[in-house]
């Protein structure tokens, strides 16, 4: 499965990339929302792993832009964020509407748990 990893922290990103590649996935990695849109257009990911706290544009801005394109309506988005889930729960409905399928609190999520969540998805057929 091809994954678009949007992660502002390059140290963590390298760790996640290695763990996900070990699990048999291929990764496109970007640090910012703008680059994520361009990369999604070029690489056609099967799944997006998104940190909400990004520099420049936020994860929410990325989601709004991403879901505005007809081709990307069905691509699952997994939130993997440093924002506590209790704070996100206020926006539960809005996140669901924007197609967020899983929310993971990054400081408490192991690599094994991240891979296990991602492995629940099957590649989008083209």
């Amino acid at each position, binding site marked *: 499965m091809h994954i678009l990893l949007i992660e502002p922290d390059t140290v963590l990103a390298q*760790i996640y990339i290695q*763990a996900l590649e070990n699990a048999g996935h291929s990764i496109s990695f970007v640090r910012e929302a703008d680059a994520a849109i361009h990369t999604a257009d070029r690489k056609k990911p099967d799944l997006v792993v998104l940190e909400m706290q990004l520099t420049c544009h936020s994860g929410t801005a990325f989601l709004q832009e991403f879901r505005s394109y007809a081709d990307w309506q069905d691509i699952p988005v997994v939130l993997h964020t*440093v924002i506590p889930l209790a704070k996100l729960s206020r926006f539960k409905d809005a996140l669901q509407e924007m197609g967020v399928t899983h929310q993971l609190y990054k*400081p*408490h999520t*192991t*690599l094994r748990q991240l891979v296990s969540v991602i492995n629940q998805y099957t590649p989008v057929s083209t």
Partner: protein
Amino acid sequence: MKQAPNGGRQVADHISDTQMLCSIAEQLKAPLMYLARQAELAQQLNPVESGATFKSMQTHADMALRLVDSYLLGLDLSNRQVSLELEPVPIAAALYDVAHDLTPIAKQRNTDIELVLAGKYGQVMAHPIGLRAALYGLGFVLSEVIHPEKIRNTLRVAAHRTKGGIVTGLYIDGPADLQTSIAASKISQNIGMRQPFTNLTASSGAGVFVANTIFDAMDTKLRVGRFKNQQGLAATLQPSKQLQLV
């Protein structure tokens, strides 16, 4: 009249101190995540060589991440920035989660975890994240003060019914000085000292302080308790009156 500026400055100083502590705690998360996830990755890449060392590193870094979050919640509450709204929480599931969270650190300290539910309970009124953070913090405290000479120890995560409500806490065998631990925390809280007793580590006092603050915010009190010849730290929670389908 003259006290107002000083009082105002004290409040401002307190808020400033709390904000600084919150910022420090937030910043600590990133290096702890590097440590935890790199150690986990190292185990996956090389499970035979140095596996135990990396496992230990991961366990302690993950534990530190949970404690940092507990401390942040405690700091927020002590600064009255967050109020805890109580809601019906299934107590068995909550205790199971706490036992699960504590298992890696217990293993590192030759301690077995037992989940004891003395009766069939439904839901209690609590704040789910606060309850989990408080009980996790207490588990860490008890794992630090647990009887050091015993080869094998048991930490019990338990709930039992009393006239006052559902007593929920963690218990250990042995003569751990829990009363002192709570007193230390209360003194630290009142006079601003970090840890006045030398026989306890600073982290124990902080863990009790956090649990104490969270339980206060849930309208209950942390206290030393006894359960089946064991001593521990517990709080009494009220059963939810919400009807449940069985």
